[in-house]
């Protein structure tokens, strides 16, 4: 009988972590639906970016208030989770505060004391975050794409953190042996008087309840991530590592096109030769992207990493002037469609069955794509190195090269370039006239 709590704990732990592992596998399978992309270059710079941008949050502090608040929650959350280690060991071995047995009381007190201070700070910060979203109503949290789930998701996370921090403090406050140590109860000593009238037994029950809810809550949180914008707390690291290193203005040359152009320009190629009959000839490669599988795995990793913070959209010239384009929506749509494709694969025994839908049209409209000025403001603004412009450009390529669906004026511009080497209908032979005018 006496081992029941230990066994129960082990089961909860295994379930929680097992489900998380399952989600991680699904995540990685979905990301790999994207096309291959070589990012093995310049490793030192990549590690550096990860250290600065993800760990050091260098881009977050571009907006000092939000940045500072975010750092408190981030640091607090990471450090307080060290406490989870003790909870797990206690749970498995049936001990109580195993830390006290292996560490000197003063060291233990110092650790728990720091956790308590951080927990209180996180609590206050999370309340401020909640106010920003719900009372102050910052514009970037109110856009069209932030209705429904994305809005609730943002709030759920905040409630979660409030509850977890409260449980942690209550757990300490109602732990009479811990309180009597009088070391490390920096915050909880002020909470424990709230429970002063209660009997030892009731206190113990509250303490146990808080302890269990705390660890179960953390496991639930871990498993909530997959469905949430909070995936960024894990994916920000790989995403900043793989982030773009070339100048922002450089858009990769499409290799499929390069092959075609080389063939066309090759003076030795016989234009009248019939293409060699190749039994195994793969389907001709598609130009550009109309669905998530046409994008690179990095685009898809970007989509899962997006925190939906809207910094990109709040600096997008198109969005600022009332156009439909929102780079945040581009990322959210990509993730939603990828999830849909993933579910389709799960439901069909590991194979994607055409569902008559695609990213282009069903999620992202032509109107959004054509509103982009390719200014890179979104790329610059993103705190976790996401590149929405890259997706926009690949989709434009599909529209133009596969569907000839560019706006008429752009078609005129391109015809002019093709015929007379300038975007306007001027004669190439007049290209030097300016000097004599």
């Amino acid at each position, binding site marked *: 009988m006496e081992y029941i709590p230990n066994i129960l704990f082990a089961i909860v732990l295994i379930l929680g972590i097992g489900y998380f592992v399952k989600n991680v596998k699904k995540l990685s399978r979905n990301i790999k639906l994207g096309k291959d992309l070589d990012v093995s270059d310049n490793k030192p710079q990549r590690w550096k970016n990860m250290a600065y941008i993800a760990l050091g949050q260098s881009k977050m502090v571009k907006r000092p208030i939000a940045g500072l608040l975010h750092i408190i929650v981030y640091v607090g959350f990471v450090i307080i989770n060290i406490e989870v280690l003790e909870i797990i060991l206690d749970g498995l071995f049936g001990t109580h505060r195993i830390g006290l047995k292996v560490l000197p009381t003063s060291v233990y007190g110092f650790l728990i004391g720091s956790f308590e201070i951080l927990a209180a700070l996180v609590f206050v910060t999370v309340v401020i975050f909640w106010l920003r979203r719900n009372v102050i109503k910052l514009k970037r949290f109110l856009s069209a794409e932030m209705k429904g789930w994305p809005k609730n998701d943002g709030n759920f996370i905040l409630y979660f953190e409030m509850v977890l921090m409260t449980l942690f403090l209550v757990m300490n406050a109602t732990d009479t042996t811990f309180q009597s140590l009088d070391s490390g109860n920096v915050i909880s000593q002020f909470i424990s008087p709230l429970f002063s009238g209660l009997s030892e037994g009731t206190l113990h029950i509250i303490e146990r309840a808080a302890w269990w809810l705390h660890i179960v809550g953390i496991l639930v949180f871990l498993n909530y991530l997959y469905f949430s914008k909070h995936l960024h707390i894990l994916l920000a690291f790989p995403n900043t590592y793989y982030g773009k290193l070339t*100048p*922002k*203005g*450089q*858009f*990769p*040359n*499409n290799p499929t*096109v*390069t092959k*075609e*152009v080389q063939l066309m*320009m090759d003076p030795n190629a016989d234009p009248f030769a019939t293409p060699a009959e190749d039994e195994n000839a793969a389907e001709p490669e598609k*130009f*550009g992207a109309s669905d998530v599988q046409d994008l690179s795995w990095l685009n898809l990793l970007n989509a899962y990493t997006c925190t939906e913070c809207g910094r990109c959209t709040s*600096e997008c*010239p*198109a969005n*600022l*002037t*009332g*156009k*439909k*384009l929102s780079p945040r929506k581009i990322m959210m749509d990509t993730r939603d469609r990828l999830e849909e494709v993933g579910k389709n694969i799960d439901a069909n025994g590991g194979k994607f069955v055409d569902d008559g839908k695609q990213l282009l049209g069903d999620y992202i409209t032509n109107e959004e794509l*054509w*509103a982009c*000025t*390719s*200014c*890179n*403001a979104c790329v*610059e603004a993103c705190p976790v190195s996401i590149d929405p412009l890259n997706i926009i*450009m690949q*989709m*434009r*390529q*599909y*529209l*133009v*090269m596969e569907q000839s669906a*560019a*706006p008429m004026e*752009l078609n005129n*511009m*391109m015809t002019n*370039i*093709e015929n007379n*080497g*300038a*975007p*306007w209908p*001027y004669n*190439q*032979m*007049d*290209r*030097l006239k*300016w*000097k004599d*005018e």
Partner: protein
Amino acid sequence: MSEQLNVPTMEQMMAEGKNPEYLFWVGSAGAFDDRAKKITKAFVKLLNKANVDFAVLGTEESDSGDAAKRAGNEFLFQMQAVTNIEVMNMYEVKKIITTDPHDYNTIKNEYPGLGGNYEVFHHTEFLSQLISQGKLKVKESEFKGKKVTFHDPCYLGRANEVFEAPRDLIQTLGVDFKEMKRNQRHSLCCGAGGAQMFKEPEKGDKDINVLRTEDALETDPKVIITACPFCNTMMTDGVKAKEKEAEIDVMDIAELIANTQE
């Protein structure tokens, strides 16, 4: 224009057995757009003043393909790029200067992958070099002491991180330079990039160039300085939309410097 500009072509140079140090890439806007042609000429005037050994491709230059690429026509872009690269490699071009940040970006960053490897300078970088090397002297500007502001072209600033060169040049003019609230890395696009120059904007509640002009107007400038032919058009139209064209000039930095030369 009364002044005689010296604009040799690569073809002429080659016929004379010469290989000029620089190719001045004029670009489609610089060659055909009425406003941009003035910038081209102002810049050539400075090149002549500083005795720069350069030539242009003239009728052998074709569109860089930038607008086609940003519009999504990678095919047309690569055809243009390969054609231009063939010509430039034939003339053994090593260094290129251009007044167009879009062409600067594409030639510098996107041509190398297609066989075109050159050292590329934007005219602001090049002019600021000429000045620091003492090859070009700047006299006081007609706008001395007057308020001016500078609009960072996306393809020069954010895209290629050239922020200092244009500001260094402005400093030489003795003007009262004020930054807009969104500047450098966080500058707001003028609305021309990504092939927007060639089409009507999508439905919205304002034009981007008007919003950017409002940013500029907040600094109460006499001149809005640009460093891109497309930005110039956009800001000029923005100033007109705000009915300020009588009070505010939109000028390329090269023009301001050229005006200080006699």
